[in-house]
């Protein structure tokens, strides 16, 4: 049974169909990369999985349970999915440690001591051990994004969704964030990411999905998509990426 199954997902914004009948299956420990032009629906797809947006049609199933059912409690579902955004969105009025321990303490009812120990452990593992008591505005962009990823990890999610997590960063800082994602993959985390870093996508993805105008146009391994795409629009997109020297 797949960890995540999306069937016939439609999403409409003010008369415009942003997602049109998306079908996708993600297995445990798989890393799926969504690529496509801006506005093709990648972020919307992630937000629908996380129930930040309500799908207009179709179903999403997580661990065999249909999460798009109207009777399901969204907060309950969100406890099992971790999402990280392009703009980090750390809570500015709390230290990094408090940012990370907030959800484990309040949502998962972990004790304060245990939550702190786990948080410090994660911070050490990913190179932010000395920043535990710092405030977000004292950290660089790369450090903030890593902290945001750790914050999502602290709740021990079944699935991690990463939405353009390197797009707001200086090239120098992109590396450190990609490093942490690489480590997550080695640890066996199931992930769906959207990214413009095609080189990284090629390296890390098990499956690459190309979205175009809300439609999942093509799906395959990185080799298939980047060296010999089937669809003409995919070819066009990949060619643009190569021309921009990003592959």
């Amino acid at each position: 049974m797949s960890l995540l199954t999306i069937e016939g997902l439609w999403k409409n914004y003010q008369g415009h169909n942003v997602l049109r009948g998306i079908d996708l299956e993600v297995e445990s420990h798989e890393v799926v990369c969504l690529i496509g032009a801006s506005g093709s629906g990648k972020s919307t797809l992630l937000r629908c999985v996380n129930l930040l947006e309500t799908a207009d049609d179709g179903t999403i199933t997580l661990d065999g349970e249909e999460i798009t059912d109207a009777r399901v409690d969204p907060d309950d579902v969100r406890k099992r999915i971790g999402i990280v955004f392009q703009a980090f969105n750390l809570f500015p009025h709390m230290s990094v440690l408090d940012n990370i321990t907030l959800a484990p303490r309040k949502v998962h009812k972990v004790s304060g001591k245990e939550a702190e120990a786990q948080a410090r452990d994660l911070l050490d593992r990913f190179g932010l051990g000395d920043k535990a008591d710092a405030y977000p505005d004292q950290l660089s962009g790369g450090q903030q994004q890593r902290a945001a990823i750790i914050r999502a990890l602290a709740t021990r999610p079944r699935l991690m969704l990463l939405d353009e997590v390197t797009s707001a960063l200086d090239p120098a800082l992109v590396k450190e964030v990609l490093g942490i994602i690489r480590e997550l993959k080695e640890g066996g985390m199931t992930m769906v990411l959207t990214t413009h870093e095609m080189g990284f996508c090629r390296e890390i993805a098990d499956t690459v999905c190309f979205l175009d105008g809300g439609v999942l146009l093509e799906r395959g391994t990185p080799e298939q998509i980047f060296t010999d795409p089937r669809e003409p629009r995919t070819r066009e997109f990949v060619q643009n990426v190569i021309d921009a020297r990003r592959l």
Partner: protein
Amino acid sequence: MKNDERLRVPADWEKSERQLERERLRRRSSIRSGSVATASTILVVVLLLWLFTTSPGWPRVRETFFDLDQFTGALPDVLSGFLLNVKIFLIAEPLILIVGLLVALARNLTAPVFFPLRALAVIYTDIFRGVPTILIIYLVGFGLPALGLQGTPTDLATLGIIALTLSYGAYVAEVFRAGIESVHPSQRAAARSLGLSHGQTMRHVVVPQAVRRVVPPLLNDFVSLQKDTALVATIGPLEALRQAQIHVASTFNYTPYLAAALLFILLTIPMARFTDYLAARSQRRRGQ
């Protein structure tokens, strides 16, 4: 300078002669304009005072409003009355903050099940921002006891506190609402994504940020409340204004009003400076 020349990095900065000359000129010009400004201000103030004190009615005004004997005679009573104002203020202020925050949070609820609560919050805000504070004091002061409900407070100062809380609560609710809405929706999205409920999100993420942002306008409302405690005089308790009124009524001299005014100023000026300091500090922080 050619590209292959090594850039010369100066070791320490010593001001050049040109810079020293510039600084001398600027210093001279600022001293000059400063003195001109001071001199002309002093001149204007002296002129205004002269106009004031040579006006035809001045002797009469002076003995009616600025009589020292009357001032010292009325001061003890006015001062003890002022303590009541301070008491009213200290009790009303936390109540206003609580009411304001609750109403703002109620207005923020989106779930359909909360519709009555939200509607109530809107009605409350509309009514109590629309009616003048002095009218609310009258209505509560005379109307509430008239209902004859058991347990209604009859103490005039308490009724005044209730009226001020209702009136200012509505303003403060709007201030809190603006603060809550100014917190970027991405903060709420991040909190909900972690599995936090609406209530937890408000309590731990949104409200703490909102409150920090609205401290300057809230302090402004505090200063305003301090002087509006005088409005309570209209329903009778012996606070500063009422004490002054009693003295004025018996002596036909208005100096006690001035005494009361002075006491209010002594309280609100430190508050106003503190507000400025906090506002400046938050500006500096945001500018970082």
